């Protein structure tokens, strides 16, 4: 039984899931398992980070640290559309509220808007509660062919689309990482492959490594129009019970972001909802869900799952 080790930055777990999916979809195997795990206390995949090297440019020629990088991405959105720090902060309010119902979340505390805005600044506009915490974690998913699945269940969850994209050329990248274009390309491809549109989704688990990132991905995943993400969070459309629940799990802001585990865990979360097994955080009647991850450098995975 072959074992493949995968490393693809924050998209490691979801890339492993995709490798397992391809193994089964190609007919090479009828059952495959994707396991994601990470001990962030030991720096995990970030162990090779250059921040402590003699020639590190950190703090003397800008930043390569993630809170700042995703801060800059959010600030670019402010520049284009007038988005405010308060709108970004509302993402943290929502996700932490969702986390209260998730026993697998690292933090299960509500953070009202005032608390988020007054929390210790990490990299403006992101405050402490707008950054994912450091934590260990693991998740696993078993994939099998349709025929094999019949032996175990009459109601399988289907992988309707599995997509992996990398960066096309955009002028400032990688001086300023472009987290948008590859996600847009991936979502377009995923909707085509799944034969659905964003309006057909019942829930989304997306890559909220920082609160700034989540708002950008509303537009990148076509959940709203260009420049409308701020309005979307103001309206509360992405709360459980809203038009399109995003990060019902509490997101990475609450669960933590053990890189290898993240991509598998958000697929598992969708599966639990589609099976009606998500407990108090259940998105009622969920039939179709989308799991999204990006890893800088860059890789974006999107999986569309259907009941």
């Amino acid at each position, binding site marked *: 039984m072959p074992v493949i080790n995968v490393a693809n930055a924050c998209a490691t777990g979801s890339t492993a899931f995709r490798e397992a999916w391809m193994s089964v979809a190609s007919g090479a195997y009828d059952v495959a398992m994707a396991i994601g795990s990470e001990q962030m206390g030991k720096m995990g995949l970030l162990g090779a980070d250059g921040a402590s090297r003699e020639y590190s440019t950190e703090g*003397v*020629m800008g930043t390569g*640290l993630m809170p700042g990088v995703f801060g800059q991405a959010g600030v*670019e959105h402010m520049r284009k559309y007038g988005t405010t720090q308060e709108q970004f902060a509302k993402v943290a309010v929502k996700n932490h509220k969702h986390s209260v119902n998730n026993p697998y979340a690292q933090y299960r505390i509500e953070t009202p808007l005032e608390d988020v805005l007054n929390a210790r600044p*990490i990299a403006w506009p992101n405050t402490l509660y707008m950054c994912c915490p450091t934590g260990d974690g693991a998740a696993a998913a078993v994939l099998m062919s349709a025929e094999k699945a019949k032996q175990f269940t009459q109601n399988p969850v289907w992988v309707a689309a599995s997509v992996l994209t990398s960066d096309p050329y955009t002028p400032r990248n990688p001086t300023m990482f472009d987290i948008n274009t590859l996600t847009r390309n991936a979502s377009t491809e995923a909707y085509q492959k799944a034969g659905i549109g964003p309006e057909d989704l019942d829930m989304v688990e997306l890559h909220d490594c920082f609160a700034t990132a989540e708002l950008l991905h509303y537009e990148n995943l076509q959940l709203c129009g260009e420049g409308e993400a701020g309005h979307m969070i103001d309206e509360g459309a992405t709360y459980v019970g809203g038009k399109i629940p995003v990060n019902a799990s509490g997101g990475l802001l609450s669960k933590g972001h053990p890189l290898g585990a993240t991509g598998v865990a958000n697929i598992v979360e969708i599966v639990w909802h589609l099976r009606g097994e998500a407990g108090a955080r259940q998105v009622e009647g969920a039939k179709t869900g989308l799991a999204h991850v990006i890893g800088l450098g860059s890789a974006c995975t999107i999986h569309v799952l259907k009941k």
Partner: protein
Amino acid sequence: MTQEAATAAEKKPNPIVPFMKLPEKYPDEPAYLWGVVCNNCGAKYLGHRTACGNCGSTGPFEETRFGDEGEIYSFAVVHQTVPGLEAPYVAAIVDLDDGVSVRANVYGLDISKPGPEWFGKRVKMFTEKVRVDREGNDIIAAKFKVTDGK
């Protein structure tokens, strides 16, 4: 000549990034950022390039010296950083007038009041010794200060 004096004479300042050059007479002659332009499509890059990310051309690339002025495109104010660094600092993306972007610390802003008024601020490059390497050579970084056209 003593051993110490000999070592001192051999020391020379080095740029912190490969896309920065220090002339022989640095600091009397200023350091500058350099890069390449794709002859096929005109895409510009900091430093060397073996193939163009935009058009796929493998060259030739024309080496070019970038000017030292530009403006702030985006930024973050980093408060939490690696041990040994002073914070907070403004970590910006500076669009140089010559058509390429660079990560940069920017000085001369009221760091307690980040906001949209920082977009498009005119900035000019300066260089500074930021540390010393194992052999005792000065490491030089490029930084930017707000000029507002002055």
